């Protein structure tokens, strides 16, 4: 099975910051197939389009997935109304995820805001080989820091207003690390300006970099061609699709 659609029980729901929720979902066959960086496509009652949400945790032994999402509009607000014990309708797992290479000795994970959750499965895979740099608007928007610490990864926290951790953007500590250490790979998810900055630093330093993109999406499986993203393949411009070719792309392929 590559992906399937079904209704699954929400076994745990927590509010982890203002308008940000964490669901743990009992879905053994989806958890079994899921890879870091993939996403689930969730039906919001009363809406035509599903909402793509990145996977924040994969527990194959327990048969659960964890998702963390922010209320961005009416669709995600509807999904946030679901409670423990309710059924959630998912088409999952979808998309092309991150490359996890056991040979890598040193990796940097960079998450900005609600782009942080998909970094957590990578932190759990790489453990103390990883440094997780997470950036948020302010202290009240900070999420998942304990989970990152529990993964064994080194954690660096930044806030835009300095109300917690380093006062500044994630690119500051990343530039320092990239200047003095040998890094095998960088993985990032967050706002486009952040991703572009990271991709530029990686290109200058010759560091392999994968980024996770988001786009308004319909089918979620590569059929409708709704979520186009300009990329370069074999030196030719190519409209890739975030749902199937991505959401994770080699940063070198993305045309900004």
């Amino acid at each position, binding site marked *: *099975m590559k992906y399937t659609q079904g209704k699954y029980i929400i076994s745990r729901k927590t509010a982890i910051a203002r308008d940000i929720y964490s669901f743990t979902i009992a879905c053994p066959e989806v958890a079994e197939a899921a890879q870091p960086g993939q996403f689930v496509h969730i*039906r919001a009652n009363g809406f*035509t*389009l599903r909402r793509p949400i990145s996977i924040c945790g994969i527990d194959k032994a327990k048969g659960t997935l964890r998702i963390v999402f922010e209320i961005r509009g009416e669709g995600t607000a509807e999904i946030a109304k679901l409670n423990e014990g309710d059924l959630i309708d998912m088409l999952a797992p979808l998309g092309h995820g991150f490359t996890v290479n056991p040979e890598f000795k040193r990796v940097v994970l960079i998450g900005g805001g609600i782009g942080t959750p998909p970094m957590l499965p990578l932190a759990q895979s790489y453990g103390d080989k990883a440094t997780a740099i997470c950036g948020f608007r302010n202290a009240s928007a900070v999420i998942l820091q304990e989970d990152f610490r529990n993964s064994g990864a080194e954690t660096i926290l930044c806030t835009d207003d300095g109300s917690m951790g380093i006062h500044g953007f994630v690119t500051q500590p990343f530039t320092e690390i990239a200047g003095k250490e040998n890094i095998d790979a960088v993985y990032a998810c967050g706002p486009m300006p952040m991703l572009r900055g990271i991709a530029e630093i990686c290109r200058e330093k010759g560091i392999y970099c994968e980024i996770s993109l988001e786009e*308004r999406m*319909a089918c979620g499986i590569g*059929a409708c061609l709704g*979520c*186009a993203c300009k990329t370069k393949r074999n030196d030719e411009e190519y409209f890739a699709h975030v749902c199937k070719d991505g959401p994770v792309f080699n940063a070198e392929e993305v045309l900004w």
Partner: protein
Amino acid sequence: MADLSVNVCGVDFKNPIIPASGVFGYGREYEELFPLSALGGIATKGTTLHKRTGNLAPRIAETPSGMLNSVGLQNPGIDHFIESELPYLMTKNLVVLANIAGSTVEECIQVAEKLESTDAHMIELNISCPNVKQGGAAFGTSCEMAAEVTRQVRKVTTKPLVVKLSPNVTSITDIAKAVEDAGADAVSLINTLLGMRIDINTGRPVLRNNVGGMSGPAVFPIAVRMVWQVANAVNIPVIGMGGVSSGRDAIELMMAGASAVQVGAAIFTDPFAPVRIIDEMNDFLDSKGISSVKDIIGTVQPW
């Protein structure tokens, strides 16, 4: 178990349900979920003479009970379709409606010519895409242009020719009659309705193309009305579509006069929608003791 088979232009369908062009690609992605052989047919992604990259993103927006799209006919070109997609679909035991489009009459002719030597069962000529600047809707909104492109494509194909109509016109029955006179074997309708959304925080349209085609349950009553009007105006079969999301909707569209039904946006909400709709149609017919779905086509008794 009711008999769900229908016949459109001499082509047998095991059931009347066809995923609409554009939502379903060339079928491969959905084969992961259910066998394509469960479907009556497939209307393949609109295909042009050469590869098209389509419009910039965002191409998709949610609307009340529906959605907008402005994909802009992104497709790999007719040669790729014939070499790599059609042979795969021909093994799936369903009717293939090869949906074609072009920016000029000449392009439509060339695409149809290339399909003539293939096994595709029917051609669905898209004269109504709202998302490309040239052609598309320009053909579909004038009786003269619609008739001209139909007449020219008719000359180069012996396959049943279905012409897909735009609802963005003053009188869809006039367009339908024009393409019937020009040699169309059937019409399919409705394509999407031109719509627009604006992000009031940024003052920018949600779609990068500014405007796009609206579909989903919100357009269903318009589809019923137009299918009914066209079915009463022409003597060729009508394939109905527009916001169908349940077996009851499909039955309703057939009562309005559709000989077969395409399913579009509903597939985004429920990827199993086409197969669910087939089951629901069967349940409805059984509950009414109707032995064949053919017996309901055009049976609405207007006041």
